[in-house]
């Protein structure tokens, strides 16, 4: 069974584009990263999955059920971490966690206590007094305390310090090993590369790639850095050209032999050819449209 499936999911806000014709599949048990810059449609997709907004056309299935009439039975098994966690400011963290559990009609005090302990969250604090990071921690506990089968996390690490980030990902990996599906959106690529097994890239409302993270990184492109020259060899398939103090650097996705032949004719002081990291792949996808700089 797939944890998430969208079929030609399209959402317009009036005339403004949200997402267009999105077909996304997330298998059960995946640790899935959803990458895209601000405004690409990540949050719109997530909001459609959670039934917060209604698609203009197309639809979505979550945990095998269509998002619609039976939404509450889906949400019972979903934990959601919003990008900007906001809560009832007059409450204490403890009251908030209890309220979240009561809304789910489950007793998760034990799990909540464990999570608060690991994330170093003081439950006696008032929500209004919490820093951004601590509010995020409260939101994480709300999202995980009922042991959901699917965790949907919208830019989960913003505001968390590196130590807590590490603890948070350790938590997610434990949950994932125990069978939960993790779906997280981010624009921090290193995060996705380090933790996710699968990833999808969204750009201007459209899905432009969806695969295993390793497969996405293996597009055949190479990062070529030449020292001692100022102009790239006359080859097609050169992108992302940049000049350094004593040379040039570019992404090459054409025939390797053609590159070698051209390089042989140049007088170089040094040379590296390496596999690009996900960040470069990401830029590569983004530049295909020609809009990105």
């Amino acid at each position, binding site marked *: 069974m797939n944890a998430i499936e969208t079929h030609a999911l399209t959402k317009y*806000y009036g005339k403004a584009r949200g997402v267009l014709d999105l077909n996304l599949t997330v298998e059960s048990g995946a640790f899935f990263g959803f990458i895209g810059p601000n405004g690409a449609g990540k949050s719109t997709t997530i*909001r459609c999955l*959670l*039934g*917060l*907004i*209604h698609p203009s056309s197309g639809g979505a299935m979550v945990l095998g059920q269509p998002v619609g009439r039976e*939404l*509450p*039975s889906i*949400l*019972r098994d*979903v934990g*959601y971490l*919003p990008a*900007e*966690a*906001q*809560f*009832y*400011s*007059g409450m204490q963290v403890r009251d908030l966690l209890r*309220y*979240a559990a*009561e*809304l*789910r*009609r489950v007793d998760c005090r034990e799990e909540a206590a464990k999570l608060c302990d690991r994330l170093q969250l003081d439950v006696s604090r008032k929500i209004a007094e919490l820093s951004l990071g601590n509010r995020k921690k409260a939101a994480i506990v*709300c999202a995980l305390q009922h042991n959901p089968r699917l965790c949907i996390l919208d830019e989960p690490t913003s505001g968390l310090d590196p130590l807590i980030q590490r603890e948070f990902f350790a938590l997610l990996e434990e949950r994932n090993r125990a069978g939960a599906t993790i779906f997280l959106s981010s624009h921090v690529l290193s995060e996705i590369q380090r933790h996710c097994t699968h990833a999808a890239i969204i750009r201007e409302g459209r899905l432009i790639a969806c695969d295993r993270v390793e497969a996405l990184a293996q597009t055949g492109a190479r990062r070529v850095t030449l020292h001692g020259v100022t102009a790239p060899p006359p080859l097609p398939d050169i992108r992302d050209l940049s000049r350094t103090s004593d040379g040039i650097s570019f992404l090459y996705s054409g025939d390797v032999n053609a590159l070698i032949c051209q390089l042989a004719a140049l007088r170089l002081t040094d040379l590296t050819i390496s596999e690009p990291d996900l960040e470069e792949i990401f830029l590569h996808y983004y530049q295909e449209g020609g809009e990105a700089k």
Partner: protein
Amino acid sequence: MTVWKQEMRLGLLSLLIWTGSIGFLIVICILLFPEMQGQMNQVSSVFSSMGSFTQAFGMDRLNFGELIGFYGVECGNILGLGGAFFAALTAIASLSKEERDHTAEFLLTHPVRRSAVVLQKLLAVVSQILLLNLAVLLLSLVSIRLIGEEIPWKPLLLLHLAYLLLQLELAAVCFGVSAFLRRGGLGLGIGLAAMCYFLNIVANIAGQAEWLKYITPYGYAEAADIVSSGSIDFLMALPGLGFTILGIAAAFFWYTRKDIL
């Protein structure tokens, strides 16, 4: 009833403040009555000869020398306006505050039907209005006994019933509006309540504007009419019932369909 409980908890302070303020003013008014009663014969004639001002507040038909006449004007205005403001403010914030404070994203991603959220929030608004009115009524009764007057049960209860209906009607309309708002609409709520109040005053002064009484809930909650006729004008209250149903229906219809941004 988790959402209801939460609403009641969050609204407790506001409920206490409004109940306290309205109750305090009414108690003070009643306690002042014996002192004023002595001068009432002159005062009554003054009050009943101020032309349209007299008409505007129904003082031409109420006898200030009697407790119920005095109560109808003084306490009627306090509870009529104060209660209406409370009802309007509470109702208009009820649904919209979740989006204003971005807590809707939290609430609606839990396994609760949106219709259940609307129902429980509506019940919380109604509960708070009932509690306020009950507390104010009790304070009134105790104060009337304190000054040694007989309690004019029937007109007094009818008056309070009329104000309760008025508040429920305003609340229902504001609740409906609340479903459409993404930000707080406190100004809108206060404005609506105040407009209804002034529409009634206009209707009282100008004969040809009397039809306004069928639109504003202050029409059927007019103390002078209730005390003199001993009943609430059902025909005048009927459109109000329509507005009430419309407001609640709009809230359910829209909130279960709207996009939460």
